[in-house]
């Protein structure tokens, strides 16, 4: 009996702890949404933590029209989209050659990519800045797409290779006997089989490029081309004292990620853990 009560108490305190921790994790984000709907009068008037009254939806229209958040948003979407496609195409081809095809340097190539994973982006910042300027790619979408793709490759190749190793040889063999070329085997047989790995790589690449800051502030200075991360940074410069539109910008920048997460939370969690454990 005593043990039963003790067990119940323990369960209660564990739940309490988990709930409190959940509040710590989630409340700042809820608060962000709340302040995106307030104006300065309200915040300076003492309503810092409460509900917006009334909600100032015009903060969102202001952020979109005056601060061109929408433009930054599309820049980010474009850069991220192209990066994801480039990473998937390049990494899947290379991973296939490394994990399934027979050639002398396949191990050495894999090791090169593994080593590349350890390179901090800081190391590449200034040299890339100079390279991009010299080949006239500075201030273009490509100045972000190419580095994001390159730095996304190692992880993608590792994930794809480990996935491809699980594909039974017989599938390729029977296709080869039927007279399929290697390109057809790759595109018609292998690619459909690695769909789950493609989802993982896409999520991984999405998060890395959507959220990237260091390259984005360095390689783009034209307002027209700024991604949402940099756009918000420059918004802070112009709207130093306006909390509402900045809050709206933050919410707009976060929305796609949260939507993806809500729809695919299991897959997103798996992707990031796979990256850690395989890497």
């Amino acid at each position, binding site marked *: 009996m005593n043990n039963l009560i003790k067990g119940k108490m323990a369960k209660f305190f564990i*739940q309490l702890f988990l709930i409190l921790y959940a509040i710590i994790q989630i409340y700042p984000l809820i608060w962000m949404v709340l302040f995106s709907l307030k104006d300065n009068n309200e915040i300076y008037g003492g309503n810092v933590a409460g509900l917006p009254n009334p909600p100032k939806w015009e903060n969102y229209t202001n952020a979109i029209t005056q601060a061109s958040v929408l433009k930054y948003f599309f820049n980010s979407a474009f850069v991220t989209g192209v990066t994801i496609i480039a990473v998937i195409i390049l990494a899947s081809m290379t991973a296939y050659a490394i994990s399934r095809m027979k050639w002398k340097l396949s191990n050495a190539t894999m090791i090169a990519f593994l080593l590349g994973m350890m390179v901090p982006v800081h190391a590449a910042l200034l040299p890339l800045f100079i390279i991009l300027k010299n080949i006239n790619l500075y201030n273009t979408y490509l100045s972000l797409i190419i580095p994001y793709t390159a730095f996304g490759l190692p992880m993608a190749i590792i994930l794809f290779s480990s996935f491809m190793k699980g594909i039974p040889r017989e599938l390729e063999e029977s296709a080869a006997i039927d007279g399929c070329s290697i390109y057809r085997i790759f595109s018609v047989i292998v690619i459909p089989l690695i769909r789950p790995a493609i989802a993982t790589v896409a999520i991984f690449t999405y998060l890395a490029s959507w959220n990237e800051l260091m390259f984005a502030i360095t390689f783009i200075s034209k307002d027209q081309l700024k991604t949402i991360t940099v756009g918000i940074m420059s918004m802070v410069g112009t709207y130093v004292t306006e909390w509402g539109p900045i809050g709206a910008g933050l919410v707009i920048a976060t929305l796609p990620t949260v939507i993806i997460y809500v729809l695919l939370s299991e897959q997103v969690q798996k992707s*990031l853990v796979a990256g850690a454990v395989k890497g």
Partner: protein
Amino acid sequence: MDSVLSNKKAICIFVIPTLIVFCVIVFLPIFMSAYYSTLDWDGIGKGTFIGIDNYIKLFSDDVFLKSILNSFLFAFASIFIQLSISLVLALILANGVKGEKLYRTIYFIPVIISTIVIGQLWTKIYNADYGLLNALLKSIGLENLAYDWLGKENTALVCSFIPTLWQYVGYHMLIMYSGAKSISDEIYEAAEIDGSSKINTAFKITIPLLKPILKVCLIFSLIGSLKVFDLIYVLTNGGPLHATEVPSTLMYSSVFNSYQYGYGSAMAVFIIIECLVFTIILDKVFKTE
């Protein structure tokens, strides 16, 4: 079959474009950085070769030494505070509680959100006049504790750690949780039959079996702390008076604000070597044990 799989032309088509992009963007810059770090160069014209002078200057530069110390403190906090919280949460959730999946999902949310958003959000939380933190203190009658958290030297460093710790708890929790979940049930059943308490089981069975996973988390938080940039850049940009300076923010401002290309490159090379050395050390430590 073998002839199809050793098709040289196909291998070239599959590998060469990737290798070119990768080598030019990832490997070449390391050598360029190493070369720049031997120059006295402001980015205009040609630099003058000065050998290891930049490195000598680096290690006699108080601000740089302070930035290294800060990144170590950061690493220390990540490893001891963040990983402990993550481990406790992971062990509780892996043990099976009501709402396991929901908690797992909630704890992970900050991980996926852009550091810039997190940084902006926390500057608002810390805001001296109307921030959430001071408002909270006021509402519980502690208004004399209200403070300019990020603006003052003595609190800025601690306050700039907290958002990162907060952001990545869920990440490490999930890695450890997945590791704990993959431990076979039979081991736990045997422990239960032997009358081992849950806490005892955690210390004697789960944690030792999690060692490879803990190693990954340890390397991630250590290396992550040594390279931290985004959050500090957004929160304080190294200030006030270099109180929150870390090597990468200092590197960034040396290169792009004061145009010391050579000196900044020496810092970049230092960061690469530092990360490599610590990865190798941790790898060795975990192997010999």
